């Protein structure tokens, strides 16, 4: 019986590898999803069989924002600790993408080289989490945050939460769940957990903003219906929350950022308190949202028992996932590309940008492909108004460039928004209008980011500070 299964697994892996090679050859993109689909047709539950061969098991990371960055941080930390990660780094985060990634890491017989050192690190789409949690039998499941994102695909924020709760409840008690204590929508999952929970949080209240942002989502207590009150809001609905009705509140954190130092052009500096002791961390990224990503990654590392030195080394060696946050020099201008795909994410990007000095040159790309979300109404929930008095250049591009320009017009930012729909012409124009020596911020949605990256990679150079370690 097992011999036959073994043969079939090998056959599925071989077929899938052929399909991957073929699809790359024929130019169907990177061949990341198709082989998974094909392998599933040959052997159902192939991912389960392959994942069972990972010596250290696997880690799942999900949430609206930050899952790619968090997964990459965990990968770096795992490498520094001597693991050999199997990681869906291309961001293909549905089941077929994860299956394809497992296939790619195995040989023709479906065996991993050095299986005893293998750790699966998978970023998982929010709606795919229940399926992945069953199929992959993870050791650790980490949640970043829960915001509105692509309502045309997920339906509603509540429906994502409704999917997560039973998925968490059905995990065996041996599994550690990592939760963001500062996001009430995520922290509340603890009630459903049967095993141990690690909470992470920011406790440095100098990071707080004055008021809750327009794009805040989880504002009402699901137990009693009262509106949460906040002693500090860090971004969106993330902060130090408590329900005045039933007293539910932000749980005590296991992994805590006790001090956060942000300064322009410098890596973020964090002081952390963890069950493995207190230590400092240097993170070559900007924005408070990346502090949360680092906290999630450190929590996963703590759950896996990774020593502090490996955590520090892994995080310091980090480079942002391509295009998500990337700096390069192009024609004497410093081009800073930051992915933004929903209101909470874009608010954080804008906040980080407005914290830097001097007039800002800004190029926004708004696409409405399925991967971006077909509904662009979310841009009206973004607080572009915070850029008032700061913009020297405002250029809108992408399939919905006119929508973006109109939103910028209504934000009253001073500079008149201009439109250049074509990606290449928009980049050319933005570079020409950005004075030499100044910085150009390029802020694309997902599909636009892929195109922008390709062009910039051809034209520019990455400074050593940001190079892959």
């Amino acid at each position: 019986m097992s011999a036959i299964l073994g043969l079939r697994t090998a056959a599925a892996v071989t077929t899938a590898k052929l399909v991957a090679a073929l699809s790359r050859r024929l130019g169907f993109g990177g061949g990341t999803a198709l082989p998974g689909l094909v392998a599933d047709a040959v052997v159902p539950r192939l991912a389960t069989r392959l994942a069972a061969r990972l010596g250290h098991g696997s880690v799942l990371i999900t949430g609206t924002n930050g899952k790619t960055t968090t997964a990459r941080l965990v990968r770096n930390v795992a490498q520094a600790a001597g693991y050999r990660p199997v990681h869906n780094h291309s961001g293909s985060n549905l089941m077929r993408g994860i299956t394809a990634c497992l296939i790619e890491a195995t040989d023709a017989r479906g065996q991993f080289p050095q299986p005893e050192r293998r750790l699966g690190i998978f970023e998982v789409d929010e709606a795919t989490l229940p399926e992945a949690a069953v199929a992959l039998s993870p050791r650790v499941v980490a949640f970043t945050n829960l915001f509105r994102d692509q309502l045309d695909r997920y339906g509603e924020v509540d429906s994502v939460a409704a999917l997560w709760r039973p998925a968490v409840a059905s995990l065996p008690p041996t599994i550690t769940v990592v939760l963001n204590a500062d996001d009430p929508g995520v922290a509340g999952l603890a009630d459903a957990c049967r095993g141990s929970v690690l909470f992470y949080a920011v406790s440095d209240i100098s990071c707080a903003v004055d008021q809750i942002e327009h794009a805040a989502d989880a504002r009402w207590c699901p137990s009693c219906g009262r509106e949460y009150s906040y002693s500090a809001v860090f971004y969106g609905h993330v902060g130090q929350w408590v329900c005045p009705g039933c007293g539910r509140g932000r749980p005590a954190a296991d992994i805590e950022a006790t001090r956060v130092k942000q300064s322009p052009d410098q890596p973020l500096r964090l002081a952390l308190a963890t069950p493995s002791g207190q230590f400092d961390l240097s993170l070559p990224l900007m924005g408070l949202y990346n502090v949360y990503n680092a906290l999630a990654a450190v929590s996963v590392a703590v759950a896996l028992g990774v020593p502090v030195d490996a955590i520090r080394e892994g995080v310091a060696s980090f480079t942002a996932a391509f295009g998500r946050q990337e700096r390069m020099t192009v024609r004497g201008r410093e081009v800073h590309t930051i992915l933004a795909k929903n209101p909470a994410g874009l608010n954080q990007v804008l906040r980080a940008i407005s914290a830097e000095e001097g007039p800002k040159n800004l190029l926004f790309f708004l696409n409405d492909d399925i991967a971006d979300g077909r509904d662009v109404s979310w841009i009206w929930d973004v607080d572009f108004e915070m850029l008032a008095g700061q913009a020297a250049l405002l250029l809108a591009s992408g399939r919905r460039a006119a929508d973006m320009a109109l939103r910028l017009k209504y934000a009253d930012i001073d500079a008149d928004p201009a439109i250049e729909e074509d990606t290449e012409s928009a980049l050319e124009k933005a570079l020409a209008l950005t004075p030499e020596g100044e910085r150009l911020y390029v802020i694309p949605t997902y599909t636009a980011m892929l195109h922008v990256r390709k062009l910039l990679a051809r034209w520019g150079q990455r400074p050593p500070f940001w190079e892959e370690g």
Partner: protein
Amino acid sequence: MEAALRLAHLYPKLMNLYGDRGNILSLRRRCQQRGITLAVDELELGDALDPAAYDLVFIGGAQDREQQRVAVDLLGTKAEALHQAVEQGVVLLAVCGGYQLLGRYYRPAAGEELAGVGIFDAWTVHPGPAAKRFIGNVVVRWRGGTLVGFENHGGRTYLGPSARPLATVIAGFGNNGRDGSEGVVQGENAFGTYLHGSLLPKNPRFADHLIAQALRRRYGDVELEPLDDVLEERAHAEAVRLAKKKPIFGRR
């Protein structure tokens, strides 16, 4: 023109799902540029609505859970005042979930029927979780031209004999995906629609239609100065073009 208008924004915290803030920004800006002050009051759960205090009322869309709480609050604290306001000619715009709640009733896929405020002679039925959700770009024709937006609703809305459709569907689904109608006009001054996106910034003629109506009621015959709408009209035209084009799915 020296004039002032007052708008009641109902449940801006609970009903704010699809960029509805843009509708308020559009009204405020289009008034401001003509020297009209637009004051906006935000009314949440439990807040009473003074029917004599307002020229305009706006309500947006929400998730199901929030919609239920709003339904209860509307009936408890605001229904009577809303009826009085609309009878007195106050201009009302209700989008998506707000549109549904101001009809006669909403019958969800599961659970109890929600009683509506009954401003609109319309009712909404959700045909069940297996039924197709109406999602996509939409373009419709109303008496002032085309309207563009995005729709995302499971419920199907049907109009009774005393209501007229706001528009007819050119591309998209509209009220129920069957009879080609979109939205509702009750009397002359109460409007309901499934179009978000935000609606008003990209449909400046419709925004002006609402403002002019509110002004006329308070100040008599008025003529609105034209504004520089180059960007608004461009976004409108682009949205018409995209809505008419069938999306190519699976292209990544």
